[in-house]
């Protein structure tokens, strides 16, 4: 694999991490959704690049899914939810943004530290990709646990899943990648639908998980 293609792949993966950070940083709902669209686009670019350099045409499908489904459909759907459910614009984080960013830094460091001992023969690109995708995943989870608001939690989950796709495509010749990406798209669809017109709205007038959690398992 020549240097240039490696650098580009590296660049794209790094870009994904960067966007994840921006997601973490973002405090306004609509901007968050737009950023997520950007996240998806960057992912699809990186996947497409992988398809190119690996010469694995089926990955283009994954790229297309990422672009179309997560770059367009989902953000739009979420836009409508936000409008429909009159979610107030600001997103209240659990801890301060700054602290969250700091934690994010720590997570990136952790993911690199974990991957470092992996011997190079696993393929340096794979190794870097692993580090980046793990960073994206951890950041996604961080977002899920550091936001009170259901929509932003969903966004967090989706960015997490983008990290998965990144890792999967980064692994040369991994079978079932397309199937997996499809399966995940379905999963996300379920979640979004669940939030949107399925039970949630029908029963609670807000998707803030506080309402969803009024029932905390067993009644005392």
């Amino acid at each position, binding site marked *: 694999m020549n240097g240039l293609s490696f650098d580009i792949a590296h660049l794209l993966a790094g870009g994904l991490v960067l966007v994840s950070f921006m997601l973490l940083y973002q405090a306004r709902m609509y901007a968050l959704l737009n950023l997520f669209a950007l996240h998806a686009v960057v992912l699809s670019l990186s996947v497409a690049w992988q398809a190119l350099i690996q010469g694995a045409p089926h990955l283009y499908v994954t790229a297309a899914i990422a672009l179309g489904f997560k770059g367009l459909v989902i953000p739009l759907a979420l836009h409508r939810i936000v409008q429909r459910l009159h979610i107030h614009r600001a997103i209240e984080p659990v801890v301060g943004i700054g602290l969250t960013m700091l934690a994010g830094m720590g997570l990136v460091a952790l993911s690199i530290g974990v991957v470092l001992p992996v011997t190079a023969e696993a393929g340096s690109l794979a190794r870097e990709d692993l580090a980046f995708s793990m960073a994206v995943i951890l950041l996604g989870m961080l977002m899920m646990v550091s936001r009170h608001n259901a929509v932003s939690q969903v966004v967090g989950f989706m960015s997490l899943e983008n990290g998965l796709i990144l890792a999967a495509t980064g692994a040369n010749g991994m079978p079932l990648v397309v199937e997996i990406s499809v399966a995940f798209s379905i999963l996300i669809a379920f979640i979004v639908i669940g939030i949107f017109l399925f039970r949630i709205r029908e029963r609670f007038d807000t998707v803030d998980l506080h309402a*969803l959690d009024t029932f*905390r398992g067993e009644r005392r």
Partner: protein
Amino acid sequence: MSLAGLLWLVAAFLALGALALPVLRLAAGSRLVYAGSLAVSLAALGVAAHHLLFPPGAPETLALPLGIPWLGAHFRLDVLSAFFLVVVNFGAAVTSLYSLGYGQHEPSPRRVLPFLPAFLGGMNLVLLADDAYTFLLAWEFMSVTSWALVMAHHREEGNARAGFVYLTMAAFGTLCLLLAFGLLAGAEGAYAFEQMRARQPGPGLASLVLLLAILGTGSKAGAVPLHAWLPLAHPAAPSQVSALMSGIMTKVALYGLVRIAFDLLDEPQWWWSVAVLVVGGVTSVLGVLYALMQHDLKRLLAYHTVENIGIILIGLGLALAFRAEGAGAAAALALTAALFHVLNHSLFKSLLFFGAGAVLTATGERDMERLGGLIHRMPLTALAFLVGSAAIAALPPLNGFASEWLTFQAILVSPQLTSWSLRFLVPAVGALLALSAALAAACFVKAFGITFLGRPRTAAAAGAHEVDRFSLAAMLGLGALCLLVGLFPAVVIDALAPVTQALVGASLPAQLGRPWLTVVPIAEGRSSYNALLLFLFIAFSTLVTVYAIHRWASHAVRRAAPWDCGWPDPDPATQYTAGSFAQPIRRVFGTVVFAAQERIAMPLPGDPEPARLHVSLRDFIWEGLYEGVARVVGIVADVLNRTQFLTIRRYLSLVFAVLILLLLVLVAWH
């Protein structure tokens, strides 16, 4: 051969339990089942007795393709298990006989009959097991079936709690034994007792094993402070079951201790005996003190079981000490005393529980404060109960005294011991033993006197009637046996010789050959006891007295109201009650042991209220140990229970935290 036969009999017990429900549809169903268990236990008794009296050279062994797959179920019949089999199956037989009559009064036979034979089978199986899995399986099976029997009258107040405490303690004991066996078996899992005998753990581990064994078997036998379940569970069960649990099952538990401490463990440490002796002494005295404070007849008897377990433990502890110091003969003496007492206690404790059951059926009362004067209405029951009381109070020439005398002899040879702490400990234990014996006498004066003597305190007591002939046969038979065993202890001692030979490599000199069947444990000049001669002597002098009196003294008898220092009061409430009888002892010992307090609520002058005496006793073991543990568990449960009520986000944070933690571990590991 006889081993296979015994296993078949165990199978017969289990089958009997399984068939009980359909059989109960018949009119005489319960009689049939009890008759069946009587027959089976008699057969087992015969086989075991034959093996004990005419021991073959080597113990019989047998392996079945059951249990742990790569190990199989091992069974073994040696003299030790044979002796305990005799005890168990004799008790089973007598209980079945008693139940032929008593069982007719059972309100819910469907909750008793399926489990009783299974219980008996389980106890037999424990004694035959020769690998850890089979042993514990049978052990716990015994616990479960007896728990079911305790729960037979589940709608009565407090029985569910009794069952809960009982089975929890049983599980605790089983886990302790499980750990002990785990140590004995080692990592590669040599669970067969044969392998355990071969591979001995180091001294440190062996001591751990012994402590665990004491905990495990002690919790089943009712050694203080693990006794708390016993006075709850034994009274809760139907009386014939109480007799089995108190008289028999506790002995099976002690069998476990003997098996581990004398058979599986090879090199005993001298301080093991210290542990056993201390436990035994404390158990015996505390048990009888608790018993003295009771006024529920069956609970009193249950606490006396605790006391007798203590006495047996003292014997076992002495045997351990002598064995550790290589004094074979003395060890044999102590072990003989302990095992002899095992037999005796099974006899008179069954008898006493039968008596309590008879009283219960005749009056519907277990509370001594509401009984009295039963000797007039139930003379035979009273006679049997009197014999049992005299036996358990260790009065010569009955059997209880014979074994306690042997125990005292074992204590008196303790100067042979070289370890100083033991030399100082053993006399103290002896004093405790004497104390508990004397207190037992006091306690049974109370038990018999308040229940059977005096004037009836309630209409129920006044209207009592003698019980059926099966029950009487069982009780009187046991009473006769108490006397016979007391008169001819030499027979039992000689029967125990092979057992001690097998366990401590020595045995008492043969007794049967001596003139007048005198018992001479060590040497003529040292000590000897001849119950038969003593009995004849007393009988002779009594006859002489009676003759003389009736020859020369006046025969005039006048029946009159009691004298009572001139103020006879017809109200039976003026009699001494169980509580007032125990008052002096309560004052002497109770103030320390139970923080006993008496408060008199004296009404104001002119107030027609009667004055009231309030007595408060505290059970420090229960409050400290059991309630303490319960409190801790409750607190932890409350704290953890909060996790049931978190939000999804918090749950996710938990997952996230664990993930980060593991990744950090990974980084740290590199």
